[in-house]
């Protein structure tokens, strides 16, 4: 796998991320249009219209807002998603194939704790604050299972380097013998993107929660950031569990693209089909059922690796 530590490639990666996120948003628009009784095609462009609308809208301020930290929260989602792309392989290319790629990815999604909390807190608004609380209590539930889900492929590949993990799946994709870790990872991606069914932090019951006070370009950054996070999460799941670019006939970069889009569409479509999972209910299940399952999955993989040596 070749590292591409060239600024031009980094720029291209950002463009690819943006396009994929827009496609994801378009699919979401289609799902909504269908459910509201319009043709799916009419919804495909709704993210473009939304983009135009938010570019035209003014920003706003609230009384005694913590403007600096608030704006950091607004811009943070996109930045985190971009930093994540650094370690995500696209076919046989990768921007920075660092030895601790998996840790890098995990460190970035831990940053989201701060970003989403600042977003809720900075506006000096009761609903934003409640949204922030909700996100943090949800994060307490998903973070540890997420970490163990990421450890599992690393154990199997004897490496924290993403390219090594992809190479170790030569022959058998990790999703086959670590499905629990795969499912936990996917659920965590949805949760740290604050996307339904784990999207109560931006729920309509609290007037949009973390989104309740932002408008214009700030809102655009947050909404785009959520799609970008879903996209990078899907792309990383492809590298970790779905064999990266492995596949017959087509070139490996195209396989990466197809698998990523497929997973992204699943994430996007879930939003509309499931009721929201309340953070307080999630905590119980996450700590009593999901975390032990994640540990068992890691244990199982570790035993297989040791015995199979």
């Amino acid at each position, binding site marked *: 796998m070749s590292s591409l530590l060239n600024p031009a490639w980094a720029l291209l990666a950002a463009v690819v991320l943006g396009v994929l996120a827009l496609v994801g948003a378009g699919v979401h628009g289609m799902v909504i249009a269908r459910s509201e009784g319009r043709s799916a095609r009419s919804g495909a462009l709704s993210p473009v219209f*939304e983009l*135009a609308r938010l570019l035209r809208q003014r920003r706003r*301020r*609230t009384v005694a807002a913590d403007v600096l930290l608030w704006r950091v929260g607004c811009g943070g989602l996109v930045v985190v998603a971009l930093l994540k792309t650094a370690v995500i392989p696209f076919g046989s290319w990768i921007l920075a194939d660092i030895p601790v790629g998996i840790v890098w990815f995990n460190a970035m999604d831990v940053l989201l704790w701060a970003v989403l909390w600042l977003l809720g807190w900075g506006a000096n608004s009761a609903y934003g*604050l409640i949204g922030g609380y909700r996100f943090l209590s949800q994060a307490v539930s998903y973070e540890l299972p997420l970490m163990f889900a990421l450890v599992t492929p690393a154990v199997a590949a004897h490496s924290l380097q993403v390219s090594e993990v992809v190479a170790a799946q030569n022959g058998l994709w990790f999703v086959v013998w670590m499905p629990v870790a795969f499912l936990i990872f996917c659920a965590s991606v949805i949760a740290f993107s604050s996307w339904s069914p784990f999207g109560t932090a931006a729920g309509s019951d609290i007037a949009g929660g973390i989104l*309740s*006070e932002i408008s214009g370009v700030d809102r655009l950054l947050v909404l785009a950031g959520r799609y970008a996070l879903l996209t990078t999460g899907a792309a990383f799941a492809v590298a970790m569990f779905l064999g990266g670019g492995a596949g017959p006939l087509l070139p490996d970069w195209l396989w990466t693209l197809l698998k990523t889009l497929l997973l992204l569409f699943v994430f996007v479509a879930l939003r509309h089909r499931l009721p929201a999972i309340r953070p307080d209910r999630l905590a119980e299940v996450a700590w009593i059922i999901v975390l032990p399952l994640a540990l068992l999955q890691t244990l199982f993989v570790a035993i297989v690796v040791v015995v199979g040596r």
Partner: protein
Amino acid sequence: MGLRDSIAQGALRRVHVLLVETPGWAEVRMAVEGELRLRGWKAATSPADADILVVCGAPGHELASVCARVWSQMPGPRSRVTVDVTRDVSTALDSAADELGDDDAQRRDARARPTSMPQGLDEHSSVDHAGMDHPGMPGMDHSGMDHSDMPGMDHSGMATHDHTTMSGPSGIPLASGAPDRDGLEMDVLHVPLGPVLPHWHAGLVVDCVLHGDVIGQAEAKVLPAAGVPVGLPPDGSAGGEQRRVVVRNCDQAARVLALAGWPSAATRAQRIRDAALVGAALADLGAQLESLVRTVGRSRLLRWTLRGIPAAIGAVGSGEPVTVRERMLDLLREAAQSAGGASERHAASDVASQQELLRALPALIEGTDVATARLIIAAASLDTASLAISGAMRHE
């Protein structure tokens, strides 16, 4: 100009509309919601999210002042419109959209806006915020910090953990502390829920004392309308009463489903409601309702996530503890039966029982978190229109 025009054209394809419903004008609100769905527009969740403010009906003095504040909090470009009767909905939205797309008018509006508003969008404002306790959209202003007029809740002498700085910025009193339901010292915020909130009873305001996101104390009231509300029109056609039940129950169930964060199910309930409003065959709607009941009833996820949340039965009190989920399913089943031709004669919701329900509401939500409280309130069959009329008559 080309780029600016095409951006404006694009923006007008996806307008976000903030709805304010005056008690009694539910039918107009439903018509607007239906129209938004047809156009591919969106209902806004907060003033920050809104392009157009649609006021349904004639709000009374208090509700009108809330509308003015909400209007001042919209970022712009913005436009506002008042709709009184259902048949005006489409033209009203069209004219509001035209105004929204008119760059010159928007520029004039932006220039005319005060740079320092008492409502306080401007952080340089040094207006004294005490006494500004109109219920509005909480959150976008200082209301959370305002404890000046709550007797018994003034713990300003105690250690305070403020959310901003110790100096009390912009003249806002610091948050005070009080023990929460677990006896822990917590900041308290005074937040009015409503009257402008998504999926909320028209005109209802619940003043809450919040510890984090847990409601410590609550007080509920209904803001009156300025005029006589026009309820659902007496339908002369056969099945008028049944149709009314379908509309009312679907509307309420859609609310609960939306608050449970299940948009597809909520949209289905709304579409059935709107079809009933425009006179679709009740038999078809009955079949759709039964299918919706099956989908919702089957969802284990919904059962789990709404487990143990009690419903306020109030007027229809049977004594059995019922959960919000069961209550919502009952509403849908009742609608299905009505659509199928069963005509149980419902006692018209009398004002006394509604007032009793309104009085009982705070006790039900005290000690719950905001998400739970929202579900309990939405599942309560509160007819704010009848309360608003009686309130208006009492004032006269």
